[in-house]
């Protein structure tokens, strides 16, 4: 492990911002730190950077405990959520600042800054001030500035938060490509699940100061281990009692059932459906158009579920009676989540 946090605790007054955080990160990976607002993501990042001291626990980088190493000596590049560009310096001076502090010779600084600005696609804007740049350009400057001293570890706090949706999409893939090219170990904070899934090699999920789960995007999405992770992704419909859905095993002490839209198949009565026999009847309460297709809200056994259909399937109207088949659901018991499959999937199907 390149970066390791061991039993980190951090309080702000009485508030526990980090609760026994233990996690490891491999060299060269791009890690997404994902969790709801206030879950302690920024706190973790700032402790790694040395902007905040943990109350207890060890922070280890490259095999060395660095708790007592001052922030400036940790070899870390940090991109602030607000970018924190030096407003009274040009783009060039912003990127050159760290190198000047390190007393690098002037021609070396110049070369490195130009190289970096070329890398981030901002050549020619050296003389501009941050106020004369667009949001995306500012983010690139912040990125270049953090990279200038050749950090071994790059930390980014919500790098896309201040950028509008369209540009954000572009920047995501740009940043992913850039970090892969450079091979620098990176951790970025986000509260946007799509962003984490799209960009990260591995996702660390935080909730209320604790680490809920660590894994590849596929793992954490499709195989959530905790109740929180199961309910965090997708557009879950959550309900208490699933005993009416008879095609699922009944677990003891079950608390919540969680059904994601892709777990649900909604078909018109007239459509052919493979599992027609084991489908339940539902009533459509809402039909909404979305970019990707049509989103339905269907009431089944007294429970309101969200489901999706594509545009090319026959139209469904509000109030229509439909067949609803649920492939699988997560069931939570205390803190853990279990995946249940519809029993019909295991039975031989008789097509009539």
């Amino acid at each position: 492990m390149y970066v390791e946090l061991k039993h980190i605790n951090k309080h702000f007054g009485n508030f526990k911002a980090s609760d026994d955080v233990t996690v490891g990160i491999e060299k060269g990976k791009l890690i997404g730190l994902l969790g709801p607002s206030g879950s302690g993501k920024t706190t973790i990042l700032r402790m790694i950077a040395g902007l905040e001291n943990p109350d207890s626990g060890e922070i280890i980088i490259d095999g060395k405990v660095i708790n007592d190493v001052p922030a400036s000596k940790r070899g870390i590049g940090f991109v602030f959520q607000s970018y924190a560009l030096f407003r009274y310096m040009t783009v060039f001076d912003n990127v050159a600042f760290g190198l000047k502090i390190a007393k690098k010779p002037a021609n070396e600084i110049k070369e490195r800054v130009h190289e970096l600005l070329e890398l981030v696609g901002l050549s020619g804007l050296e003389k501009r001030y941050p106020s004369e740049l667009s949001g995306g350009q500012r983010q690139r400057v912040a990125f270049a500035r953090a990279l200038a001293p050749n950090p071994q570890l790059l930390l980014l706090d919500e790098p896309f938060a201040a950028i509008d949706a369209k540009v954000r999409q572009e920047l995501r893939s740009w940043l992913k490509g850039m970090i892969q090219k450079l091979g620098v170990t990176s951790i970025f904070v986000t509260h946007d699940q799509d962003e984490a899934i799209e960009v990260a090699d591995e996702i660390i999920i935080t909730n209320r100061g604790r680490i809920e789960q660590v894994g590849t995007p596929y793992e954490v999405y499709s195989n959530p281990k905790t109740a929180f992770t199961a309910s965090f992704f997708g557009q879950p419909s959550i309900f208490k009692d699933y005993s009416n859905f008879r095609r699922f095993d009944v677990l003891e002490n079950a608390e919540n059932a969680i059904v994601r839209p892709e777990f649900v198949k909604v078909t018109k009565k007239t459509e052919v459906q493979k599992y027609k026999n084991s489908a339940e009847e539902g009533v459509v309460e809402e039909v909404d158009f979305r970019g990707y297709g049509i989103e339905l809200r269907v009431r089944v056994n007294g429970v309101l579920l969200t489901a999706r259909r594509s545009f090319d399937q026959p139209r469904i109207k509000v109030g229509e009676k439909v067949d609803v088949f649920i492939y699988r659901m997560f069931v939570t018991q205390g803190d853990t989540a279990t995946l249940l499959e519809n029993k019909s999937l295991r039975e031989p199907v008789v097509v009539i």
Partner: protein
Amino acid sequence: MSTAIQGGLHRDTKGSKLVRYSLIGISLLFVFLMLILPLITVITEAFKQGFAVYSKAVADDYTIKAILLTLEASFFAVAINTVFGLCAAWSLTKFKFKGKKILATLIDLPVTVSPIIAGLIFLLTFGRQSPIFPLLQDADIKIVFAVPGIVLATIFVTFPFISRELIPVLESQGTDEEEAAALMGAKGFTIFRRITFPHIKWAFLYGVVLCAARAMGEFGAVSVISGHLRGKTNTLPLHVEILFNEFQYVPAFAVASILVMLAILILVARSVIEHKGRKK
């Protein structure tokens, strides 16, 4: 200043025009009578007996000494309050600590204290009835009825002038830039000079101007603590008072005219600085 609003709502009926012109009229009259006319009075009274009398009063030995003392006290007030203002603003805006609110309140306290009381407290602290008076006497240090007392009282009455201009600016700027610089290994002074100071440059200058203005004009506090020793502990405003009370009106107004010119200079500087600061 927003002038955009007038277009839509504020320029239609005859009645509103009448209201507008009478309000502008009242304002101009008030400003002229209360603010401009006193200035003009000072100048006309000063030159009432011609330029020769005027220049004699201004070039008088005591006047020159008063000018020098005023400059001295103002210089120290600005210097100490600069050091204080920068430190206080840095401490209060870059860090979180217990008692911060109380500290901020204490800093603002002196402006609410009457100048006479400001003078009085230094009299009580360093004067004859103070417990430390014997110590001061042994060390041959004179504070009350001497220049150090004047300087202290001047610092007191101008105390928060610089810090209170800086604090809101630094408050709104946050700490991210400084943290970013510190992360890259910049040291305290470099961070202040390269990162923080450009943000507060104009506010700082503004504070200095206000501080200097008040310091030069302070009357009550200095009056209590100075002992009115002509040629020794008389500042310009005190000198004006003495001349006036001796019915030497023309010299009094002549000396006052120096202060009027300084005041106008300060107002101009103030508005230039404010203008530049806003543009940024």
